[in-house]
């Protein structure tokens, strides 16, 4: 019997191959976000900011569970704002979308639609992505501000793509760059006389609750490891009355069980050696929330498994490749050792030039002196000092666990951290030099950012003019 044409060997192979491709594609579509097969749908390399969640396509390409007002037209914009809106508000965004609701900007919006995040920040276009995820040419300021020299003669002749350079202007965050701020901090010494960092609340009060209650609490399980009990009994958890079960047998979300030390916590749940972030969050809300906003916790924030060191694009230690990022990665389970969390934990994974140079830096020397008691608390500078700065909130303070919050842009770090010890101009000069950053600021900056001096001259001219006018009018 003769085979029909369709069943010829070549066509059969072709059909099988197509069915296999279709099968893989279908599987990739419906597979969980953790499935590597999903990569076949990535249209291009994602940015440094988003690559960790690149397989969770829904985060940017679907509405937020139908619970918001997303439409096809603003779906992507909504996705941006879900994660970044708070940052923009905090930054007192200089170019908020609402600013361009004024109809006089209609013609300018035709040139650059400043009301859409995607006009300047596109994804999957690595070949044209600049720093800060910018995907338009760096002369974007010029389109609207090309006549700047008319009101600011000092800007005459400046390059059309030089506005957004370190120490001059940012599109969104100018908290450390507006002219009055620059003038106010003009002439400051490189190292301020009253240099000191924000202290943790416990450092401010000097309150050692551990000593008060050491003998008053016993573990609420019978077969506790004696070494773990010893560590725990010296910890802040012990002082706060947080016993074994409250972390290891607590249901995530059972806030009362953990917050109220007198309440037997979740005794019906199974013992769990691994304490989830949601459990820590019940008492350490701000630390957990900020952790989820940064690169260490952003995968957890979107429901993906924890970030693994091997996934990092920055150079990491090969012996740390298997490690995962959660609270315990930096905070040992039963010992509240913030010294470890502030330096050793970071250097246990990070292996880039900047990190490796830290221990030889003057900042590290100050940290060693603080640890040995040679200088006061608040004068030593750790990795955490700059990358997870303490935030003062009234009489208290907490550690911002979003390691990215002061790097976006770097001038944020100048205002939030550097200026606690250094003058503004010195700080700008330092962060403007990428070579200096590589060596962890091991020497005084050689570059000079002129914005502070320019702003000061601008105000000086006006102050002089004001005085001349007052003199002439009093005659």
């Amino acid at each position, binding site marked *: 019997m003769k085979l029909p044409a369709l069943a010829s060997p070549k066509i059969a192979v072709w059909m099988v191959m197509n069915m296999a491709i279709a099968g893989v594609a279908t599987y990739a579509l419906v597979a969980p976000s953790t499935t590597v097969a999903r990569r076949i749908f990535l249209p291009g390399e994602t940015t440094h900011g988003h690559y960790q969640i690149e397989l969770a396509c829904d985060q940017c390409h679907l509405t937020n569970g139908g619970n918001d007002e997303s439409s096809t037209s603003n779906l992507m914009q909504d996705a941006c704002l879900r994660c970044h809106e708070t940052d923009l508000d905090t930054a*007192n965004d200089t170019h908020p979308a*609402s*600013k361009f*609701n*004024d*109809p*006089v900007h*209609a*013609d300018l*919006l*035709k040139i650059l639609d400043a009301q859409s995040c995607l006009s300047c920040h596109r994804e999957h276009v690595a070949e044209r992505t600049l720093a800060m995820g910018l995907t338009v040419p760096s002369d974007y300021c010029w389109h609207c501000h090309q006549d700047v020299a008319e*009101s600011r003669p000092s800007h005459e002749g400046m390059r059309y793509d030089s506005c957004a350079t370190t120490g001059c202007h940012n599109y969104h965050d100018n908290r450390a760059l507006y002219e*009055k*701020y620059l003038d*106010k901090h003009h002439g400051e010494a490189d190292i301020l006389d009253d240099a000191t960092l924000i202290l943790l609340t416990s450092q401010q009060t000097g309150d050692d609750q551990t000593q008060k209650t050491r003998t008053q609490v016993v573990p609420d399980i019978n077969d506790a490891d004696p070494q773990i009990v010893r560590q725990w009994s010296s910890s802040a958890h012990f002082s706060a009355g947080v016993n074994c079960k409250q972390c290891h047998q607590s249901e995530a979300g059972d806030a009362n069980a953990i917050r109220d030390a007198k309440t037997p916590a979740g005794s019906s749940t199974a013992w769990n050696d691994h304490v989830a972030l949601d459990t820590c969050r019940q008492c350490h809300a701000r630390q957990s929330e900020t952790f989820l906003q940064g690169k260490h916790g952003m995968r957890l924030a979107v429901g993906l498994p924890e970030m693994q060191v091997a996934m990092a694009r920055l150079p990491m230690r090969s012996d740390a490749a298997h490690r995962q990022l959660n609270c315990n990665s930096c905070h040992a389970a039963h010992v509240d050792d913030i010294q470890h969390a502030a330096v050793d934990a970071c250097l246990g994974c990070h292996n880039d030039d900047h990190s490796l140079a830290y221990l030889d830096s003057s900042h590290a020397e100050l940290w060693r002196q603080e640890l040995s008691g040679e200088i006061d608390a608040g004068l030593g500078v750790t990795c955490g000092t700059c990358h997870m700065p303490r935030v003062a909130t009234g009489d208290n303070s907490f550690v911002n666990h979003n390691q990215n919050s002061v790097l976006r842009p770097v001038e944020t770090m100048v205002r939030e951290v550097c200026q606690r010890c250094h003058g503004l101009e010195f700080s700008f000069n330092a962060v403007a030099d990428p070579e200096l950053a590589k060596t962890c600021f091991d020497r005084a900056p050689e570059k000079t950012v002129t914005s502070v001096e320019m702003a000061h001259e601008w*105000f000086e001219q*006006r*102050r002089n*003019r*004001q005085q001349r006018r*007052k003199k002439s009018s009093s005659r």
Partner: protein
Amino acid sequence: MSFQSMTIQRVFFAVAGLSAVVVGTLSITGCGSSEASSSSSGPTITPQQFADGVHAVMMADRTVYATHVVTNLKKQESVVTADEYWEDSDDAIPLPAQMFRMGAELVDENKEAGFTYALRSSWPLNEQHQAKTDLEKEALQYIVENPGENFYGEEVLGDTNYFVAVYPDRAVAEACWTCHNDHPNRGDDYPEFEKDDVMGGVLVRIPLP
């Protein structure tokens, strides 16, 4: 009931329902309808009436702030002062013009507001208050040359036609003209303002159908 009678019934209820909505709503007509309409669609106000109304509220609030808050603090020699850089200063509150602009920015964020407003001046201390369009320049000139009069006009921006009203912004409190006259940003050609001088204009812009 026949199909035809059912259809007529549906149309009747649809028209009745729509009329009820329209009658219950204060609508704005295009500039062609300069008088309040007495049609069955209910009370209607013109863009000019709407602009005059919102301007009256703006100016009342602004005058109260400038006179009873800012000037009063100054008279009392309070440690709290109105300062251009109030956000980064201790014991400081926004200047009247800043309070006005912040209100305008909140309205900008409100998609349901249906209008925008702004301060404009031929002698702006803040560049943001510079006249942006030819009509705005014409309006500022008009209110200075015609004391006591407002300016009304229309202009096309983008693809939309707008009704524009510009009202003279006068020096109502001593704090206004003394601060402006002494301001370091003032240019050499800056006028020496006195009470009731027109220092700029308040612009209200309404999109027309």
